[in-house]
């Protein structure tokens, strides 16, 4: 890619002058917009904290920066270096909503797990420790090792080290998509538009920016694809080796992204296969795909054999719920935005976004068919991108099922790559043909897609701070729970086996450094809580707890007063009624005060910690 295009300059005029003026104007506009946007985003989060509506300020802050940035990135006259600078600024700014959401520590469910895993490496000096919150993440140490290494080498806290890594990863996503698009379309403007289009996916602002393994794995995947396309085009050993190294890093970092990478590699290789003059490239593509698939298979079989069992129930249940949707007139489905506090216009935009994406894809497909690239390789790459983009629409059906919704959201980070790559040349063509009409229309389209996809991707409690709420993954961290977990660690040590509900388990399992279990079908620890006062706890459960050296029980008495915000007390399959009223009585939770085999060693009103004395129980 040539970043300094050689253009004839009018005699007597310095060739740098227009570019410098342009750069100064762009820098001034975007700096001012960035300051204004940041101020609005801060205002939005403060509004949410104090119980006021944050949505208006939030989107004002986002759009006041992103729309001018989109304009600068997409306009024909923007120079190549300036376009790169705009993309970097855009990437940095779009990390700000997540940074402001929880600047000082983990708040999302998975963040607690990853924070613990990274801290464990820092404390113990080795990888692959089991994780009690998300059981498979210990087998994918890419992110944790990176964060722990940055923390160890710089002295930054685990959280700050994570932020540094995640911001770098976020910028690499945007630049990676731009480079990938340029590999296909050979045009920097189209590349910049593709990068912007990719950022409209529902995971970009909040999900793939969290302290989670996918946040690092996605850029690794994108850069692997860059190396793959280069290897297919150039067939140099260096690019092949680079693709393999990057694929290996993706495999070590995240299971789903690794599987997504293999799927995308298959699509790219298949799209080249059989095209005249592209046989060597196809062979290279297939060889790399097989090698990467071997890496994934090897890792999943020998290093992370638990992964299949971890992912399988989600897929199986989702398919079952889709069948339920089809055959039982909606049973097993979920209603989008049910009880959501998102404003009506966000909800409407969320429904409009896939429709607009479909329209854009149809138009892009039509354009691809009419204007075929001369190079069979580029033609194949474009067809592959189209196929990947089309996967977005069937995945959207999964959003209607409780178990599939999570997977659907995650898949959009992959399928949107295809949409971005295919739609970008269409956007550029429209801008070239009728900039006055297409420009404002496309800017409006970007706004609707950004608002709608973000609303569809994350619920408001993930996007904004707010008062503590029982049963919320993001707002269950209260000083009381933190103090209890700190006390247990300070007085009894870490890595203790404890029984807890989902939300106390998050805190005790992360900052508390303990090993909580929150119940399952085979280890139904929730029966401890469910047993009515005066009724014995099942002896088999006590025997199980005793033989597995469980020492402590955490009881959150809010379970008797409040309904969990996300409708789960312990785990998704819990045999507990959910009818809008608390599922526990205070007696069920305070009965441990009178059982001779539970010693209450800590009590702070809502949180009580008991030590088991199984000798008395037996």
């Amino acid at each position, binding site marked *: *890619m*040539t*970043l300094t295009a050689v253009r004839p300059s009018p005699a007597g005029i310095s060739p740098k002058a227009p570019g410098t003026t342009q750069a100064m104007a762009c*820098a001034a506009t*975007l700096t001012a917009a960035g*300051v204004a946007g*940041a*101020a609005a985003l801060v205002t939005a*989060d403060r509004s949410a904290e104090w119980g006021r509506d944050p949505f208006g300020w939030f989107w004002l802050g986002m759009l006041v920066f992103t729309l001018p940035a989109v304009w600068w990135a997409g306009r024909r006259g923007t120079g190549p270096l300036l376009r*790169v600078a705009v993309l*970097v600024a855009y990437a*940095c700014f779009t*990390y*700000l909503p997540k940074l*402001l959401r929880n*600047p*000082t520590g983990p708040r999302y469910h998975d963040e607690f797990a990853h924070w613990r895993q990274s801290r464990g490496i820092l404390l*113990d*000096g*080795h*990888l692959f420790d089991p994780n009690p919150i998300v059981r498979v993440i210990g087998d994918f*140490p890419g*992110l944790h*090792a*990176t964060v722990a*290494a*940055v923390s*160890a*080498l*710089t*002295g*930054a806290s685990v959280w700050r080290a994570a932020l540094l890594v995640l911001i770098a990863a976020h910028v*690499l996503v945007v*630049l990676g998509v*731009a480079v990938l698009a340029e590999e296909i379309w050979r045009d920097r403007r189209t590349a910049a538009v593709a990068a912007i289009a990719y950022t409209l996916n529902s995971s970009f602002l909040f999900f793939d920016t969290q302290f989670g393994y996918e946040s690092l794995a996605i*850029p690794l995947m994108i*850069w692997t694809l860059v190396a793959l396309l*280069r290897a297919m085009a150039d067939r140099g050993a260096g*690019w092949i*080796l*680079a693709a393999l190294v990057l694929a290996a*890093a993706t495999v*070590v*970092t995240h299971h789903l992204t690794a599987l997504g990478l293999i799927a995308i590699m298959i699509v790219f290789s298949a799209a080249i296969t059989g095209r005249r003059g592209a046989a060597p490239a196809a062979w290279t593509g297939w060889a790399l795909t097989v090698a990467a698939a071997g890496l994934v298979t090897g890792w999943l079989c020998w290093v992370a054999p638990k992964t299949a069992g971890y992912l399988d129930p989600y897929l199986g249940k989702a398919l079952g719920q889709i069948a339920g949707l089809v055959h039982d007139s909606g049973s097993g489905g979920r209603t989008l935005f049910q009880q959501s506090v998102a404003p009506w216009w966000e909800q409407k935009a969320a429904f409009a976004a896939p429709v607009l994406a479909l329209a854009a894809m149809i138009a892009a497909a039509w354009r691809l068919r009419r204007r075929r690239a001369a190079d069979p390789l580029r033609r194949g790459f474009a067809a592959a991108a189209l196929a990947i983009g089309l996967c977005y629409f069937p995945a959207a059906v999964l959003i209607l099922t409780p178990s599939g919704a999570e997977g659907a959201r995650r898949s959009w980070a992959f399928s949107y790559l295809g949409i971005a790559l295919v739609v970008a040349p269409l956007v550029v063509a429209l801008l070239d043909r009728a900039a006055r009409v297409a420009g404002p229309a496309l800017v409006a389209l970007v706004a609707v897609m950004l608002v709608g996809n973000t609303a569809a991707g994350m619920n408001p409690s993930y996007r904004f701070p707010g008062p503590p709420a029982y049963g919320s993954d993001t707002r269950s961290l*209260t*000083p*009381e729970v933190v*103090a*209890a977990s700190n*006390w247990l660690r300070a007085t009894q040590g870490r890595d203790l086996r404890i029984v807890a509900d989902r939300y106390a388990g998050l805190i005790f399992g992360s900052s508390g450094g303990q090993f909580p279990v929150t119940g399952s079908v085979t280890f139904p620890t929730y029966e401890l809580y469910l047993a009515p006062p005066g009724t014995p706890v099942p002896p088999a459960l006590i025997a199980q707890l005793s033989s597995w050296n469980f020492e402590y029980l955490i009881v959150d008495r809010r379970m008797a007063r409040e309904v969990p915000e996300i409708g789960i007390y312990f785990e998704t399959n819990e045999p507990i009624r959910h009818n809008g009223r608390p599922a526990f009585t205070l007696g069920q939770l305070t009965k441990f*005060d*009178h059982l001779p085999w539970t*010693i209450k*060693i*800590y*009590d*702070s*009103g809502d949180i009580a910690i008991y030590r088991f*004395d199984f000798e*008395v129980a037996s």
Partner: protein
Amino acid sequence: MTTPRLLGAAGVCLGALAFGELTLGRSGPMGIFLAGALFAIGELWSRALIRPAPPALLRLGLGATAGLIGLPLVALVLHLAGVPIRALSLTAGLAVLTAGLGGVALLRERSGAAVADPRFARTLAAVAIPGVVALVVGGAATFAYVRMPHPPEPGFTSVALGGWAAGIARPVTIPAGGLDVPIRVSSAGRPPAVEPLAVRIGDRPAGPPQPVEVAADSTRAVRVHVPAPPGAGLHRVEISLGAASTVFYARGRGAAPHGRACGAGPC
């Protein structure tokens, strides 16, 4: 920058990291040295693997990605070698990686030195300048947000078994003269208050409640006298302060000394 100079720069950065770890302790500037080292390692990856040099943005992004994955790669190798992942072992691992990549890059350059690409420096500036501006603007916004007043969080008063009593794991034997049980009283986010401290043995109060001052945002130790229970059987002992309480089980002196609480001097 030539490959020997790049190697030198990586060496200086890694040396600074090791020196900082050994003498000054880790601090903020170490982040700059780490970034420099990772940038150099990434560029060495690029030079070792790819000839001719790719376009500037591709080279920069690939280098940054490769530099970043150098960290987990070294951590993984250290883990497999049984070496604890610490600052010094990581620095040593990065130094070995740098030397290896540098060696390969130099070997490949024997067939023809890499041509300096002036676009690379300009592209680096195009990435670095908005990055720094964004860091300043975003950092200032975040700094301001964190320091702005936030709604008060719910307060609480906690009672916990303290000292040796925190280790009570089975019924305690209480001597005839009773037992002083240390408890830890902590308050956060609540105004100062006077709470009744009460001891119950079985269903009966062991005496009248005693007022205890609980200062705001404080933690203090209180010794609570628990009289001997009336018989040798198992008795429930509850020490409560306001609504919070601790509960353990005890036997009188007549009972067999079953499971003395660790460190329980008087019993």
